[in-house]
């Protein structure tokens, strides 16, 4: 292994985003082939990213869209006229 584990950790994010220059990428890939600890860190970080992006991790409350549209309607179309409504 030509580069240290710590050096690999510093570049995990760029590795996952395919932003490493070819030389460093090659060095890191060589390291990963031989270092189970670093490959595990890489895999677990990738998994965290997958979980973060998963639609089910952050869900909308029930009825969110309906309430949003109802509120927007008041702004876009103005309030429904009612006998007590003297504004606008």
């Amino acid at each position, binding site marked *: 292994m030509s580069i240290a584990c710590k050096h690999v*950790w*510093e570049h*995990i*994010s*760029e590795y*996952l985003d395919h*932003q490493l220059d070819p030389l460093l990428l090659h060095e890191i890939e060589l390291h990963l082939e031989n270092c*189970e*600890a670093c*490959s*595990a*860190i890489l*895999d*677990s*970080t990738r*998994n*965290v*990213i*997958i*979980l*973060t*992006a*998963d*639609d*089910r*991790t*952050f869900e*909308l*409350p029930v009825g*969110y*869209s309906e*309430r*949003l*549209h109802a*509120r*927007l309607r008041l*702004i*876009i*179309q103005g309030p429904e006229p009612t006998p007590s409504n003297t504004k606008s």
Partner: protein
Amino acid sequence: MPTQSTTPTDEPALIRRILAGETQLFYDLIRPYEKMVYVTIYAMVRNEQEAEDGAQETLINAFRHLASFRGESKFSTWLVTIAMNEGRRRLRKFKTAAEDSLEDSADDHDGDFTPAFLTDWREIPSEALEKKEIREKLRATVQTLPPIYREVLILRDLEELNQEETAAALGIPITTVKVRLHRARMMLQKLLVPYLKESRPARKGFFGRMSP
């Protein structure tokens, strides 16, 4: 995470028509981004009601100020910038200035950290995604990150904006986006992995001894 039900190329035309008076089309314009706006604010304020109110305010503001959208950035970037500002505004209501400055100063620290060591978790994603409690844990863990890291993580890994869009939305250089995203992911890895390890039977091996 916007669903691409309208293609981005439709948006400039849609916006022109809305500004010309076809205001009903605003619903079509924002439909792909309704969730993005909510999630962005929720991940900042950690409260469903606040996030929903904030999302409504964001989209009302977007409607009112649509004429100021110049099309230099993507509509989604413009919208997420408004959402971020709304989230920050709501956060300030709850937090003391001391807490804010404490959290914001985190960027000054060198990102020297040790990731969580674990070999047991590499095959988990599909399993983990099926577990509601793991998604809850992730949600809670994202919210423990200092705001400057959380914001970048939300935009890059949750909303899946690219580096340039994230930098534009936050008004920070791309290099800062990269540094903060890296630190945010590493913090999340470190905070989350030990928990995930507990959630399944440990596999005994050499690296088990390296776990914290």
